[in-house]
């Protein structure tokens, strides 16, 4: 579950389920005409004089306990600023549209998709990426390693971060709660069995 919108309490998948039904019915009712209009509008936009949205602002972000300052465009996402400007490359950019979870970071204790969070909106908040997590025997990264909760490893930072956020809120999750807590992440290697095992073992280990 991601909490980019603090008012949104349902899980991301529930939300997508609802919105995809709406989108499907819109497609059915409006036929190809809507598609053609959309293309015409995009073409009209392309014919206009180039709009330069460029222009930078200075931002200060608190990342992994360190203040970091850089110049960005207001539209830059937190993910792109972390990766491109601040060399914090733990969170990965994959779908760039809040679907896969590889970009997950913790902002003020909540796991969020950094690809759909504006960097300017993250000022004054505590941003944590998995590089700051403990890697010792009683840690989430260790549990993922020991339970082989990864293969190529590209989704892993997102899973580890979502798991860390989950366990900080709920140190004794049930299997169902683990699944719910990690349902905003996708692994294309199919390491889910190891991931869930790692999450449950990490919960046990952290208590020790």
């Amino acid at each position, binding site marked *: 579950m991601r909490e980019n919108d603090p008012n949104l309490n349902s899980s991301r998948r529930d939300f997508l389920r609802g919105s995809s039904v709406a989108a499907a019915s819109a497609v059915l009712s409006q036929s190809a005409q809507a598609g053609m209009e959309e*293309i015409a509008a*995009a*073409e009209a*936009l*392309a*014919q206009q*004089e*180039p*709009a*330069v*949205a*460029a222009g930078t602002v200075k931002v200060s972000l608190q990342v992994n306990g360190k203040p970091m300052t850089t110049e960005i*465009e207001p*539209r*830059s996402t937190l993910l*792109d600023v972390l*990766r*491109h400007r601040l*060399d914090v*490359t*733990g*969170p*990965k*950019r*994959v779908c760039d549209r809040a679907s*896969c979870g*590889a970009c997950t970071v913790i902002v003020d204790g909540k796991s969020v998709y950094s690809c759909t969070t504006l960097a300017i909106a993250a000022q004054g908040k505590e941003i944590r*990426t*998995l*590089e700051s*997590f403990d*890697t010792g025997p009683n840690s*989430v*990264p*260790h549990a*993922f*390693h*020991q339970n*082989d*909760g*990864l293969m*190529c*490893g*590209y*989704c*892993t*930072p997102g899973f*580890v971060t979502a798991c860390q956020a989950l366990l900080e809120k709920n140190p004794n999750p049930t299997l169902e709660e683990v699944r719910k807590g990690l349902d905003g992440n*996708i*692994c*294309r*290697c199919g390491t889910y069995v190891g991931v869930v095992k790692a999450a449950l073992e990490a919960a046990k280990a952290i208590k020790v």
Partner: protein
Amino acid sequence: MAANSWPEKTRIINTRYPRLDGLAKASGRAKYPSDERPEGTLFGVVLYSLHAHAKIKSLDSSAAEKMPGVKAIEVIAGPGKTVRYHGDDIAVIVAETEEQARDASQAIKIEYEHLPHAATETQAMAENAPKIVNGGNVRKGRAQTTGNPDDGLQKADAVVEGTYFAPVITHVCLEPHGLTARWTTKTISRHGQVHSPSWQRPMNWPSQMNCP
């Protein structure tokens, strides 16, 4: 990161051994090619076709070239070329930041001549289908036959007929394909995402990169 070392015993078949790079990956420390930012890295954006089948009548990138941060524009499908699907490549725009490259891609002016399109396999294989691919939309199959199926079907107690389709299958790995290279006057070091080191042989490289 102690686990990131060669095992003491090299006989490891039938023993459990944690992945050598597992902790590095699970702690965000493993550097993938997409995590490398050599000094002066530029960002590219591809401009894609809005149309399923169209001829490019004209393409004007002059305004885009003058935009802030833009370093180069490579036109893939210029005037006279045909785009054959929604999302076909038209041009690559390279700039100092991704945002600048994206703006410049929107500033390229294109006039299309719309052509009849085929958006599904059935449409592309239909008798009077628009010619999307030079040489025909349907390629010769590569069927392989072992034994005598006709004979077998004739002798069979029951015969079930059906039409079966196989979609294009791709593993959709999350990591983007690519590699990052650092080039000095004497050496090229590169950080690729392939799993087979033989692909990384530097002897193949200068020719691939079209450099002396």
